[in-house]
């Protein structure tokens, strides 16, 4: 026992030191941003300490008071845009994904395999690669600089992931349930809506959160496609506070903190589904 214990203890200490370093690497930048959000001054302080020496809410006041060319409150306007874009992307993306995933999981039809492979391949392209073609397409159909256009673009990027995740989830649900429902007299739509969809809730939670986050956090496309200041989303607004000639890091940090709050709340509420949802299919439960 004694022989065994020493190496184990050393191993445990080493493992924990490593874990602490990793956690620090992950959390430190976030803590610096939080520190800046509550610290007076426009510039990042030179101090490496993540604890602010002085606390102020000025940056948040400035953020909320920032006004556009017509005197409108920019933050509220952009927060509203972000919420609309993120919710619409979630609803649209999940609605399309869950029906597609169910069909791909349960029915056999020509083009099924090709479709699934295409979804996977599309995922492999970096989003920036699609910027130019998407810009051209949106311009052609007159959806440039519009919330609808942005929702459409976000949905197309979120849907392949959602379809694959949900298909995996539907695959793990026993077929007998559908057969029992068919014998009970349920139509395919009824089986989908009243049996499969309620059972796929954890999978839906994961995909909904993913769609929401994709739309909520996205910056490059929103910055490229939205030319009118009144149609910016929050990431674009936050970025605009740090320009080439003047930078207000306090404003930037306050914006970043505020923007993270809805995603954190969503994570907190949905966390019990998240673990179950992501591991579903690995072990049939």
């Amino acid at each position, binding site marked *: 026992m004694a022989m065994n214990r020493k190496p184990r203890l050393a191993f445990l200490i080493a493992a924990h030191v490593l874990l602490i370093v990793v956690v620090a690497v992950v959390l430190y930048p976030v803590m610096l941003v939080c520190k800046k959000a509550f610290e007076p001054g426009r510039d990042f302080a030179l101090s490496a300490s993540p604890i602010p020496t002085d606390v102020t809410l000025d940056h948040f006041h400035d953020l909320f008071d920032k006004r556009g060319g017509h005197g409108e409150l920019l933050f509220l306007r952009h927060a509203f845009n972000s919420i609309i874009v993120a919710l619409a992307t979630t609803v649209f993306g999940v609605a399309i994904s869950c029906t597609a995933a169910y069909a791909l999981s349960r029915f056999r039809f020509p083009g099924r395999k090709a479709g699934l492979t295409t979804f996977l391949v599309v995922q492999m392209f970096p989003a920036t690669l699609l910027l130019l073609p998407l810009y051209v397409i949106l311009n052609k159909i007159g959806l440039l600089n519009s919330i609808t256009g942005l929702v459409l673009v976000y949905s197309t990027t979120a849907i392949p992931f959602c379809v694959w995740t949900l298909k995996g989830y539907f695959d793990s649900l026993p077929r007998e349930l559908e057969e029992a429902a068919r014998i009970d007299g349920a139509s395919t739509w*009824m089986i989908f809506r009243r049996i499969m969809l309620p*059972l796929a809730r954890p999978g839906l939670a994961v995909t909904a959160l993913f769609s929401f986050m994709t739309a909520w956090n996205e910056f490059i496309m929103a910055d490229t496609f939205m030319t009118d200041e009144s149609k910016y989303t929050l990431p674009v607004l936050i970025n605009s506070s740090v320009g080439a000639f003047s930078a207000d890091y306090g404003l930037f940090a306050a914006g970043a903190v505020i923007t993270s709050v809805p995603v954190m709340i969503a994570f907190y509420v949905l966390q019990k589904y998240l673990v179950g949802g992501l591991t579903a299919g690995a072990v049939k439960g």
Partner: protein
Amino acid sequence: MSEVQLTGIRKVYDGVSRPVIPDLDLTVPAGQMAVLVGPSGCGKSTTLRMVAGLEEPTAGTISIGGRDVTQLPPAERDIAMVFQSYALYPHMTVFENMAFGLRIQHRPEAEIRRRVMAAAESLGLEAYLERRPKALSGGQRQRVAIGRAVVREPKVFLFDEPLSNLDAKLRGDMRREIARIHRQSKTTSMYVTHDQIEAMTLADLIVVLKDGVIQQLGTPVDIYERPANRFVAGFFGTPSMNFLAADLMHAGERTSARGKGFEIPLVTRAALRPASAATAKLMIGIRPERLSLTPLGDDVAVSGEVAMREVLGAEIVLHVDSPAGSLTVRTDAASPARLGDTVKVWLDPMAVHLFDGTTELRLS
């Protein structure tokens, strides 16, 4: 009450050349319980699923109550099915599970409540109506699954190995429950199992299947007492029937079966028609309970050594190595035979089953 009739049913799965069911004709008379029994992969579940409408036959017709339902979806066949895995809707309560089918039929709420309550009462489920399936034991879940079938009051009940997931004691209880429900409702039923005890105790009619072909169709007593071939004879009965190879011998008026170390007179067996008179190979079948260690009347003896002794409580099972092959003997627990003893096993010539040694079909 509705008769179920399968005519010329053939089932071939895509990409598999050999049919699961080559050509099957079967009639389940109205109000009877037909038990389809056979080893894994014999096509019994496939047959049931075709009656349910969950699988489409490659050829042939299925009719229920004289109506051709071959092309109809399950919902329009007026059947209810109980699955091995229960297949209860996990997100619904017991009440909702049982009411689901009636809700889809848009029955009035009062009628739904009345029918579900009646089924719940008969199955002892009243206390669990508000529970979800995951809060129930295996036996209770299967009761709910049966209840869900019963409330629909269908023309035909289909059971797909409903008791296979239960432990031995519960299986016995549920078997009696199903028998009671069938006795009361007199609904035509088809029941798939690989358990011969379920088949023997529940069936009005047993259908023994092998490789998609009906080996024998008859009452439990028929199947046990007059098995149509060696497969059926070996499938029913625990322990299995003993089989001994023998030659058909004629000596004047006397006919006998002679094997290694024994000769059984077949005087009373008229009209023996082996497939080929030239070879005249026989297969003698005798059930372990018809072998004895003490002689009775005209018994014939085979000597052998006790190779294994299994104590079952009220009785013991001896495995005796004899020149004719291994013999299984079911005998009294008081039997003095011990491991390694040389014993004489006595068999009653009237109790043997005769099969053709080549075709394995029953003779006489």
